[in-house]
C-alpha cells in the first residue's frame, strides 16, 4: 500500500470518530402557531434549533423556567441542552402553542 492511500483512510477513521462524539442538532419548526414535532427527544449536549417560519414572534419557554428562547419572526433560535429530563414548553405570546422536549443523559 502506497503511503498516499493511507492518509485518506486515516482521515475517514478520524471523521467517523469525531462524528459519533459530536452532539447533534435537532431542528424543530414553528409554523402557523404550531410547534412541530410537538414531542421531540435529544441528548445532553445536543443543540435544539427552533425555526420560526411565522411572521409573528414566538418564544420557546420552559414551564419550569429552565429556558426561554426568543424567536423573532422568520428567525431561528438555538438552545444547547445541559440537563436531562422532560421539559414542557410553550410560547409566552401565544400560550396555546405547546410542546414537550425529552432530554436523555
Amino acid at each position, binding site marked *: 500500500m502506497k503511503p498516499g492511500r493511507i492518509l485518506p483512510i486515516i482521515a475517514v477513521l478520524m471523521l467517523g470518530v469525531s462524528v459519533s462524539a459530536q452532539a447533534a442538532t435537532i431542528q424543530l419548526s414553528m409554523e*402557523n402557531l404550531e410547534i412541530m414535532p410537538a414531542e421531540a427527544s435529544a441528548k445532553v449536549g445536543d443543540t435544539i434549533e427552533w425555526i420560526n417560519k411565522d411572521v*409573528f*414572534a414566538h418564544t420557546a419557554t420552559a414551564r419550569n423556567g429552565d429556558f426561554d428562547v426568543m424567536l423573532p419572526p422568520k428567525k431561528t433560535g438555538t438552545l444547547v441542552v445541559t440537563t436531562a429530563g422532560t421539559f414542557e414548553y410553550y410560547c409566552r*405570546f*401565544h*400560550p*396555546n402553542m405547546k410542546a414537550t422536549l425529552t432530554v436523555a443523559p
Partner: protein
Amino acid sequence: MIIRLSAAIAAVSLLSGVALAQDAKPTDPQIAHIAYTAGLIDIAAAKQALSKASNKDVKTFAQDMVRDHEAVNKQALDLVKKLNVTPEDNDTSKTLSKNAADKLAELAKLNGAAFDKAYVANEVAYHKAVDSALEKTLIPSANNAELKSLLQTGLKIFQGHEQHAEHVAAELK
C-alpha cells in the same frame, strides 16, 4: 364587578353585531373588512394601553398585541391585493367599530390599576368574542381558500392572545 359586567356587555354586543352577519352570510370582501377592522380595533386599544397602563406586564401585553395584529393585518392587505379584492364595509364592521369607540372612551376615564384591570378584562372578552365570530361565522363563510387559511391562522393568534390576556388578568388580581 362593574368592570367585568361592562366587559361582558361588550362581548355580548359584539356577538350580536356578528349575529347580524350570520343571518346574511358575509361575502369574502365583507369578511376581509371585518377581520381587518377587528385587528385595527385591538391595535387602537393596545396603543391606548401603551400610553395609560402602569403595570409592566400589561404594557408588554399591549406591545405584543400591536406587533401581532399589525403582522396579521399586513398579511391580510397583501392577500386582498393579490386576490384583487376590495374589502367592503358592512354592518358587522360598523358595529365592531362603534362598540370599540365606546370602549376606548370608557377606558380613557380610568387611570392606574383600574385602567390596567379594565383593559385586560376587555381584551379577554374581546378576543373571546372575535374567536367565536371567526369560528362560527367568518371561517365557515369564507369562499377563497387563502382567505380561509389566513382566518384560521388569525383564529389561533386570537386564541393565543385570549390565553395570554387571561394569564395577565390572573396576575393582576
